């Protein structure tokens, strides 16, 4: 009865004539009139509203049947049919001027429609925002309040609607339901400011004005839906739980990325304690593990990771996180083992999970980008990670095997499924080939390395310049062709090294010479070049190019030394020192050659310079070189360099002492 007295001031009665001009009191019976007497269930006038409601209930039941259907396609078709049904029902409802007694049903149908649509499309889009907006405008139309507020967008609409909802009590449950969907939409599109304001208005406690989203969500208590109301796919309370978990998780993840770890920890724990589907729980535990690892409690982090792994798929993120943890702990064996497990885990094809037909937590989570701690990439990316780690820590045999596996994975298309390559977060494809070759050389499999290089050359030969390339001209061409020479020269250098290993110095020297010929056509004066694309940066930086030249010069010099042509060797070493005065390897090789050639004075001068350099802080750590180049540089540096220098000191400088 309270409602009845409340409704009077709204003037539904007087407005009836306006809303239904064709339906005078003496108007004929018709379906359009039925909702004028919604409370009387008897008589022909009530039938249409009942029919609509029955239709809604039937569609909800159909969606639930679809939900339970085991057959994916059947399910999908049922769900699409239900969506169409909701759309039609909504059209017929919105074809009439809005009326307060019909609005609860209309809003409920809108909510169901949005729910099915979002879950079918696996996400919220602008469409749903429009649906919500239309629903709100319909509410406002009954209050004649449309118009001036339209420019305020959804926020303004919500303000006005909730302002009137105090007098539209029967609309409240449906409005809260719609507000829940709006919150989900804003959460998934990161409109947190709007969301906070909406929740504050919903809670009606603007004075307290708590800014904490989680707190606001917790205090939001949507009114219970009437038991005799139209059926819903997911009620406002269910939505609230989902929202709470999703926002806690999002918030925690955000804080984890920005580095406010204690906050992240509490938010994530909040998310873990909420209503959480299993796959989400795995991710939450993984994020907790990451957080704890960064906070310096690896043991607790491990506990969470174990819990995450027990949770089942997806296994990727916790395994990757475990490898990072072990790496931090220095447990190389465990790290590599978890990476191997990761590769295996990612090779399992995801049976694409059947999405539920209501708003789930997953729907509201951000898409993980490569910067996210939960990004685990694909199988080949994991394989690459494993291989490159092996190469970095010196497990050359394993690295070679893993690289060969990776290449097979990428190039072999006998496999029915495609395995994405490490691109784009990883290196570009030619570098993977180069690293594979370097690993093979490192592992002593020079012949295999040559094969890999041949393969790389043959596959890219069509892109290589047919004539000797002038660097300036190349810059006019595509960016790819600009950097072709750098990795092509790297191929030549690796081939030379492989020939060295195979004991064929002639071939080796000719490869090194080809390499140097290519390299020295490229003068490193492209500084003025504009912002280089990602790929360019990944392919070759100026420093790397310099190092590449030095490495090639030293390699050829060493070959000259081995073949006893000290003069030629000296020339190369001198060039390399000129090229990169700070390179201790080049200086050392020059020193040795000078000493062997008995050019004592020059050797002493060089030695002094080396000494002076040694006192300067080392800058080697700053430079980032491609892994294959790092590996290569490690080959041309003599391991006992310092002892040899000591020896020089005694042998060269002694005669000067007296």
């Amino acid at each position: 009865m309270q409602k009845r007295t409340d409704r009077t001031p709204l003037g539904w009665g007087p407005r009836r004539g306006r809303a239904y001009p064709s339906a005078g009191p003496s108007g004929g019976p018709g379906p359009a009139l039925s909702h004028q007497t919604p409370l009387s269930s008897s008589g022909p006038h009530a039938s249409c509203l009942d029919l609509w409601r029955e239709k809604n209930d039937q569609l909800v039941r159909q969606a639930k049947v679809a939900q339970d259907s085991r057959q994916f396609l059947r399910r999908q078709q049922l769900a699409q049919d239900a969506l169409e049904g909701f759309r039609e029902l909504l059209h017929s409802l919105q074809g009439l001027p809005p009326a307060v007694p019909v609005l609860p049903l209309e809003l409920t149908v809108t909510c169901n429609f949005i729910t099915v649509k979002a879950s079918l499309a696996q996400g919220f889009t602008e469409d749903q925002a429009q649906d919500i907006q239309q629903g709100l405008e319909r509410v406002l139309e009954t209050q004649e309040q449309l118009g001036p507020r339209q420019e305020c967008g959804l926020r303004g609409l919500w303000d006005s609607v909730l302002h009137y909802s105090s007098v539209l009590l029967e609309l409240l449950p449906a409005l809260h339901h719609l507000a829940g969907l709006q919150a989900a939409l804003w959460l998934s599109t990161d409109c947190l400011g709007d969301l906070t304001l909406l929740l504050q208005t919903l809670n009606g406690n603007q004075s307290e004005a708590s800014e904490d989203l989680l707190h606001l969500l917790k205090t939001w208590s949507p009114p219970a839906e009437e038991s005799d109301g139209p059926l819903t796919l997911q009620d406002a309370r269910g939505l609230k739980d989902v929202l709470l978990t999703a926002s806690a998780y999002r918030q925690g993840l955000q804080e984890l990325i920005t580095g406010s770890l204690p906050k992240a920890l509490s938010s994530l724990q909040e998310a873990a304690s909420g209503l959480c589907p299993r796959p989400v729980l795995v991710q939450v535990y993984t994020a907790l593990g990451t957080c704890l690892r960064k906070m310096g409690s690896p043991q607790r982090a491990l506990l969470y990771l174990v819990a995450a792994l027990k949770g089942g798929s997806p296994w990727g993120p916790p395994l990757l996180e475990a490898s990072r943890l072990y790496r931090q702990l220095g447990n190389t064996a465990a790290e590599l083992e978890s990476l191997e497990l990761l590769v295996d885990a990612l090779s399992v094809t995801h049976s694409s999970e059947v999405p539920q037909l209501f708003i789930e937590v997953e729907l509201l989570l951000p898409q993980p980008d490569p910067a996210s701690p939960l990004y685990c990439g694909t199988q080949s990316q994991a394989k690459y990670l494993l291989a490159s780690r092996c190469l970095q820590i010196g497990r050359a045999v394993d690295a070679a095997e893993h690289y060969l596996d990776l290449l097979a994975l990428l190039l072999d298309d006998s496999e029915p499924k495609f395995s994405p390559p490490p691109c784009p977060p990883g290196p570009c494809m030619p570098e993977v080939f180069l690293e594979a070759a370097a690993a093979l050389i490192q592992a002593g499999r020079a012949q295999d390395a040559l094969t890999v290089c041949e393969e790389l050359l043959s596959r890219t030969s069509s892109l290589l310049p047919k004539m000797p390339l002038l660097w300036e001209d190349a810059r006019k061409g595509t960016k790819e062709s600009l950097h072709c020479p750098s990795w092509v020269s790297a191929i030549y250098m690796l081939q030379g090294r492989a020939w060295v290993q195979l004991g064929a110095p002639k071939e080796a020297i000719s490869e090194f010479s080809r390499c140097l010929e290519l390299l020295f056509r490229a003068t490193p004066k492209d500084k003025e070049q504009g912002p280089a694309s990602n790929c360019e940066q990944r392919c070759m930086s100026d420093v790397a190019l310099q190092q590449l030249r030095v490495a090639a010069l030293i390699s050829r010099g060493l070959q000259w030394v081995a073949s006893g042509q000290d003069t030629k060797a000296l020339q190369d070493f001198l060039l390399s020192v000129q090229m990169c005065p700070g390179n201790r390897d080049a200086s050392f090789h020059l020193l040795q050659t000078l000493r062997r050639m008995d050019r004592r004075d020059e050797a002493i001068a060089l030695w002094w310079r080396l000494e002076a350099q040694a006192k300067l802080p080392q800058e080697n750590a700053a430079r980032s070189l491609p892994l294959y180049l790092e590996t290569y540089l490690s080959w041309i540096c003599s391991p006992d360099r310092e002892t040899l220098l000591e020896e020089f000191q005694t042998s060269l400088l002694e005669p000067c002492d007296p």
Partner: protein
Amino acid sequence: MAGFAPRVQYLAGFRCPLGGLAAGKPRVLCHGAEIFVSTGSELVYVYDQDGRLLTAVYRFPGRVWHLELSTPRRALYALCAQKGIYCLSLDQASRSVSQGAGDDRDADEDDSEDSEDGEPPCPVSPVDPDACILPDATLCAFVVLDDMLITLAQGPAQWKVQLFGCPCPGEDARPPGQIGEVELSTSSPPAGSLGEPAAPHFLPVLCCASPPGCSGPRDRLRRSGGFVLERALFGLLFGVDASLLESPVVLCGLPDGQLCCVVLKTLVTSRLAPGDPKALVKILHHLEEPVVFIGALRTESPDMEDTHPDCLVALGHCGRVLAVRASWDEAGAVAPELQEYRLPGPVLCAACGGDGRVYHSTASGLCVVDLARGGAPPDPGQPDGGPGSLPSLLCPASLGVCSVVALSVLSEVPAGGTRLLALSARGRLMTCSLDLSSAVPCPPQGPVENTGQKIKELLSGIGTVSERVSSLKKAVDQRNQALACLNEAMNVSCVLLASREGPRPISCTVTTAWSRAQLRDVLTATCRVQNGSGFSLGRGWTWCVQVLTGSRASDPDPAGSATTYTIPVDRLGPGEQREVTLTLGPSDDGTLDLPVTVACALHYSLREVLGRALASSDSLEDPSLDGCPPDMLPEQEGICLPLSDHAVDMLQCLRFPGLASPPAQAPSLLGPTGDPVDTFLGACLGPRSEPAGPASLRAKFLPPSVATIKVSAALLKAALGAGQPGDGDPPGRSRAPAGCGDPSGEPLSGQPVPGTPCCRGASAEDGCGARCPELQPTRPPCPVSPPDPGQPRDTAAGGADAAGPAEHRRPSELVRHGRAAAAGVPAAAQPQPPPGVTPPPGGPSRCRDPVPDPGRRWVGGGAGGFGTGLLWGRGGVPGGGGVPSASFPGTEMVSVPCGPAWPETPHTAPFPPAAARWPRCTWLRWASPPWSTGAGPATSPAPGIGV
């Protein structure tokens, strides 16, 4: 062009909607001897080339937008609009069809084209909804590559490329495993939204490009909508990663003109590792018009090492062509060579053939361009035999096959020709065999004498084009002119229609006058149309004057006749006027059928204005610009705006011969100021003194006044004088004036009409007006038109004067009711009695003016006269007892002139046979007033009076 003589062979016809098949959605595919045809409807036909018959028809659950064949799997994939992708196993399908359709084969073996009209002869086998392998309402295109299914779905804001492991038909109903997905960033988001897109006008185009050496033979790729590209071009277009991985690339041509590519092997999946569009999608080009075709061809003669297509071609809907191939710059670096061309559009469909030919169908026909040989002959300056560049200009050669909406290159016949499979807009499936080896499509390779011919052809072509341009320009001008005219007409119509009350801005006045022409007195009407509006009446306007004669002008009495004069209004600017004088009568036999209604109207002929503009649109125009064909405009289509109706009645034509005026004066008998009735009424209403006393009450409460004018029959008789009344009048040519029985025994009417007298204002028994005491002023009527001896009077008045008082006392009266609130009369609520005329308080009193006023023309009822009543009623209750009106116990009367010429000639108007004798001037005849609204006298038996 000469050299192309396609041999067209019709294979079959399919049902197509009215207006033909739309381009973009029909498909023809060929697999061995089987041809699969989709016309864009729900049906997919399978035609057997060997047996030359239709072997199967499948009905899909939705309109089929795309069709793909997977030959290794022997499966047919179809994309149904807003449903998803369905898959049919060809083996199963053919089996089931052969069982079901066995009986029908004999029936349609003789002529497969029977199927064109009715239902196809084959039983239509509906496709099971369970055959849907990918239900997704947003799918717009797909392509099948080996065991992968690549789809393009329309999202709310962008396109989404998805990669699925292709499920086999008949596999368990599991969702196809999604391998990868990436969103294409488009500059303009596709219209429509999830689930409810209106059928897009243009569908995106998908196709696969593979590097050589990639698995799968070339045929396989080619059949499933893909092609293999030469290595250098592939690496240039798609990057070194793609060529290192030897990954197929999917090319998307979007309706907004973007041409972008996605390297399939880099497509990653799962929510945990979504693809980054920036890294995965590469935009190759922007055609700026919807992409309708992507293909590849070989522009160079195949050498040993690489026979793969070395040129990528994309066609836009409006005819823009992009061709890309790899070339080497002078430094030896690989660089893409991009060339854009313009072809006459709109392109309906296209296909790439061998030898660098692109076949494309436009509205005007199927054409071929040659990208390999279309350019200049090999430059002798390039001794190294390096790759020749693309031609700088394409000249399409027509193949003479029209309106092809789907095209597929069947095979290269060994002789060097090509067979095309085409589906026409009318639903006909045909093969065109082209013998291209002998064809010389482009001029540069012809001999010199051909060049002259060619130039001539080109010049004549230019001439044709310029002719066409000028004619089109003329048509546009005409349309503009017509639009301006229409606008003016609309303005005029609005002005006229808006001013219902008050003076109309465009008015028409009619005045009548007697004039003498060719020794006859003729009654002429002068119509004058005056344009008082701010708009001018220009071309297309016609001024129509309709002269309605006969007893009843108001309804189409067959007795009456109507003559319509149309006067073209050439140009009637604001403030201008135009007048025309018409002869109203009498006719050759001397009769004058009164009253005559002169109705003026303005007519605007749409045909005249629009006809030329519409006729100028010729049939060669783009059918999309279909104008209204001229014959859609009915002949009489136009706007008719009635201006005024004017009745010329008896009184306006009265002339008294006795008052013989000099003939020179006769024409001005009834001048504009001389209408006695108007003058009378004007005088009645004229002085607008504020009514006092009872008069004011009457003014308030009484209906509009009716005035009665009586002419005594005796007076008339006397006036008509000497001859025996009615002597020469054959019976039956005059209608008896109803209610004009003459108790005095004076047979005015041979046969008194019983019943209600038509002259309600004037009782038949006691003489008109006798029982209408109110009608009679207590005093002699004031001069209606104050006599002004100095002023020259019109002939009638003069005639009356001249006739002398003796005649004024004729008992006969003409009675005329006043026109209350008539159009031409000031709209007083009721006519005020003239000053000095005070209506008697009651009681009949006859007042006879003893002193005839020479200026007085109107007379009150004569004593004892049995008048014949004339009455005009408008609005008020004519003759109602309580009607205040002015009655004129006349001492004067209107002189009725006996026309000198025509009374002898008999009337031809069908008078009632009862009519007996009439005075000689029988042409005076009363009929229902043209402005009567149907009530009152007009509905009563038509009274006529012959005087």
